[in-house]
C-alpha cells in the first residue's frame, strides 16, 4: 500500500510541478511550489 501511495504522491507532485512551469502568474506558481514541498519530501521518504 505504501508503494501505491508513494506513486499517487509522485503523480500529484508531477502534475503540480507541471502546472508550476506552465502557469503564467508567478503567484500561482508560488502556490504550486508550496504544495510541491510536502509531496516532494514525502515521495523522497525524508519526512
Amino acid at each position: 500500500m505504501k508503494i501505491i501511495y508513494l506513486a499517487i504522491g509522485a503523480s500529484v507532485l508531477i502534475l503540480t510541478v507541471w502546472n508550476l512551469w506552465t502557469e503564467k502568474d508567478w503567484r500561482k506558481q508560488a502556490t504550486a511550489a508550496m504544495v510541491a514541498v510536502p509531496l516532494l519530501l514525502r515521495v523522497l521518504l525524508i519526512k
Partner: protein
Amino acid sequence: MPFEFILFIAMVGVFAACAFAIKLPVSLSMLAASLTGLLLSGNGLGIRHLVEGTFGYVDTILVIATAMVFMRAVQESGALDALNVVIIKRFRTMPAVLLPLLMLVAMFPGMITGSSSASVLTAGAVVAPVLIILGLPVESAGAFIAMAGILGMIAPPVNIPAMIIGGGIDMPFVGFELPLLLLTMPLAIVFSLTLGLKHIKKVSWEELAPRLDLETYKRFGPRLFAPILVVAILMVLGKTVPQYFGMGLPLVFIIGAALACFAGKRFNPLKAAKSAVADALPVLGILAGVGMFIQVMTLTGVRGFIVVSALSVPPALLYAAIAITIPMFGAVSSFGASSVLGVPFLLALLGKNQIITAAALSLIASLGDFMPPTALSAIFAAQIVGVQKYSRVLKRLIIPSFVIIAWSLAFIIYSKQIAALY
C-alpha cells in the same frame, strides 16, 4: 499586553495586508504571516517549521487532489451532464423535489472529499447552469452551489473539521455519520427551497431540451454512472469492512478516475488531470499555508494565547464566543478555525455529548468558507456563475449563515436530548 498578543496582531495584520492590499493569494499571505511570526519571535526564517507545518495536511492534499481528478474525469466523460438530464427530466414538474436533489448532487463531491471547493468547482459547475436554466438569478445560483459546498463539506462520510476537532481530544471520527446527517440534511432541503423555489419558472421540456446535453446519455446509457457507483461502493465498503477495503480515499478516487476514462466520452486523461490539479492548487496551497500558520502559532505561543483567551470567556458568553470567533477565524481557514478554536471550545463543553458538539462546531467552522477575504466557497461559486464581485453572491448567504449558527448552537445546547433520539 502579552507578547503573544502582539505577535498575533502582527501575523494577522501581515496576512490582511497581503491578502487585501497587495492582493496576494491566501496561500502566499499565510506564508508571509508565518514568516512574520517566525522573525518577530526570534526564530529566524524557521524553514524547518514552515516545511514541517505543511505535513499536517499532506494526506488531505492527496485526498483533495485525487478527488478533483476523479470529478474532472467524471465530468469529461459526460456523466455529470447526463445525471442532470436524468434528474431534470424526471423531476422538472416537481421543483420542491428537484431543488433538494440538485442540492444533493452539488453536495456530493464535498461529502466525499471534505472540501467545499471540490464541490463548488465540480458538481457545482454542472448544477449552476441547470439552476440558471430553471430561472434562478445568477447570484442565487451562486449562493446555492456555495451553500452546497459547505453543507457537503460537513455532511458525512468525510468531515475534515470534525476530524480535526475530535483529534484534539483523542476522540476517533467514529459515530459521526448520523449526527452530521441530522445537522446538514434538513438545512440542505430548507436552503435549496428558500434560495430557489420562488425563482423557478414552469418551463416545458421542449424549451429545456435544446439547452441540455441529451446526446451523451443516449449514447452511453447508464454505464456512464459506473465510475460514480464504483467509488460510492468502495467508499461504503471502506467504512463498513475497513479490514478488507480500507484502501483510503486517494486510491478509491484514482480507480474511479481510471474507470471514467472508459465509461463515456473520450478525453485526454493527462490534460484533464493536470487541469484538475490546477483547479485544486489554490485550495491545496491554502492547506499548506494554514499548516505553516498553525505550526508558527504553536511554536510562538500564539495558539496558547488564543486558546486560553477563548477559555477565559465567562460561561454565559461561551455560546456567543463560539458563534463569533469560529466563523471570524474561519476567514483564515475553516480547518484552521477547527484546530485552533474548535478543540478548546469542545474542551470547554465537556458536559455535552461530545460527538454532537464536535459535529455542530464543525458546521459553524465551515462558515469560514463564506468569510472574506478567503471566502473560498463563495469566490469559486461567483467564478462559476460568472459574477464579477463575489459579494453579490455573499449577500444571499448572510441570512442562511445566521440560521446555520443558530441551528448548530441548538444542537450543542440540546446535544444530550438529540443523542437520546438515536
